């Protein structure tokens, strides 16, 4: 399967909205649900993931001809883990409060399926420039999704935005939104709204295969028919 020819702007924009990693592909859900209880935490998590994704895509794309095919997944994980360790130390040094709030979830960026998925489906097959564009786009899409989740949850759950109170004293915060169930509800409702929107446009909601296999499937172009692979070689509906 030869990769479909894409323009640079497509490589960049695809990840931001049409194939948004969280809202469309449902990748990287653990951090998207766990740390989005405030806008500040969401942004820190988004930026840390952006950094790790960009760094790993750059390195994987540079090293692609030296990494043997049989051990490539382990090699990608090692590269990702290196950048995560760097991000962890940087956050601890620059914003200790947020570092404490995010806790173990910074280390868990390593097993974010989205990052490994982009390495396997894109960075390992494309030139450095395109791999970087794709990483910027996908990383930005992740930040956008986390920002939306964080905004909904902080505004409803705490009545504030970035710590600034929005409503008067009469507002009773919906505590549940900053607790774990609120994460599930927020993402569920966002997905329902998007599905409704897609349906209104009379475009069929495209099938969403569960993409967990992205991390281990070995055939070229990602798992057959799954959204992660769709970015590389499937015709698009637009």
């Amino acid at each position, binding site marked *: 399967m030869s990769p479909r020819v894409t323009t640079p702007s497509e490589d960049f924009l695809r990840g931001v909205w049409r194939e948004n990693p969280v809202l469309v592909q449902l990748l990287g859900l653990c951090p998207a649900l766990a740390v989005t209880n405030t806008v500040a935490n969401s942004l820190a998590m988004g930026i840390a993931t952006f950094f790790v994704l960009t760094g790993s895509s750059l390195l994987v794309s540079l090293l692609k001809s030296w990494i043997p095919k049989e051990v490539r997944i382990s090699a990608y994980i090692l590269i990702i883990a290196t950048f*995560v360790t760097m991000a962890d130390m940087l956050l601890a040094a620059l914003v200790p409060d947020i570092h404490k709030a995010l806790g*173990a979830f910074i280390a*868990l960026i390593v097993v974010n399926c989205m990052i490994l998925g982009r390495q396997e489906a894109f960075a390992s097959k494309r030139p450095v420039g395109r791999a970087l564009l794709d990483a910027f786009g996908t990383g930005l899409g992740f930040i956008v999704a986390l920002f939306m989740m964080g905004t909904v949850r902080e505004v409803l759950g705490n009545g504030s935005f970035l710590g600034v109170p929005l409503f008067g004293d009469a507002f009773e915060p919906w505590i549940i939104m900053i607790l774990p169930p609120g994460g*599930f509800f927020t993402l*569920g409702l966002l997905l329902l709204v998007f599905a409704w929107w897609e349906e209104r446009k009379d475009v069929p909601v495209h099938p969403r295969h*569960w993409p967990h296999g992205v991390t281990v499937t070995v055939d070229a172009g990602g798992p057959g028919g799954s959204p992660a692979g769709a970015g590389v070689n499937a015709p698009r509906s637009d």
Partner: protein
Amino acid sequence: MGELLWIFVSAMLVNNFTLVLFLGLCPFLGVSAKVGTAVRMGAANVFVLVITSLTASFLNAFVLVHAPYLRLISFIVVIASLVQIVEMAIKKLSPTLFRELGIFLPLITTNCAILGLAIFQTNRGYGALEGLFFALGAGAGLTLALSLMASIRERVELSDVPAVARNMGLVLVLAGTLSLAFMGFAGLFTS
């Protein structure tokens, strides 16, 4: 003994890995369509969690005291290789069990619950025995959440759901409701 029991129940119900800490969401949403598969997935997870916990205790006690900054990298590498070895061993010793677990066994390596367990165990300073109970509790919690979710989804399959909700949105809202129910366990311990 009381302490160990506390760790077990806390990991299983109060801080349920999937519904409260959001770890291991991929299998939770991915293979929770049928009860049978969900229970097998849970069992496979318990198995890998226990191995991971023992390995992490060993690494923490003997290797990582000298180089703590290598923790993340060594955890992920050791866990991945260990699961690979276990997979080969099972394939050789019991082909039936191997077929039962199927693709789930290798997939578990990249499940954030596994790495999460190793990291939480380290952060809380658990020893080998405490870690073992923590892993058992976490595994039991995962299995519980998976089979509950699968039972609900089997019912949803049979009901008349609006077309808009026939994707992950509905599943997530259901998960939220389950999570809400699990919040009730927070009052189980007062200490």
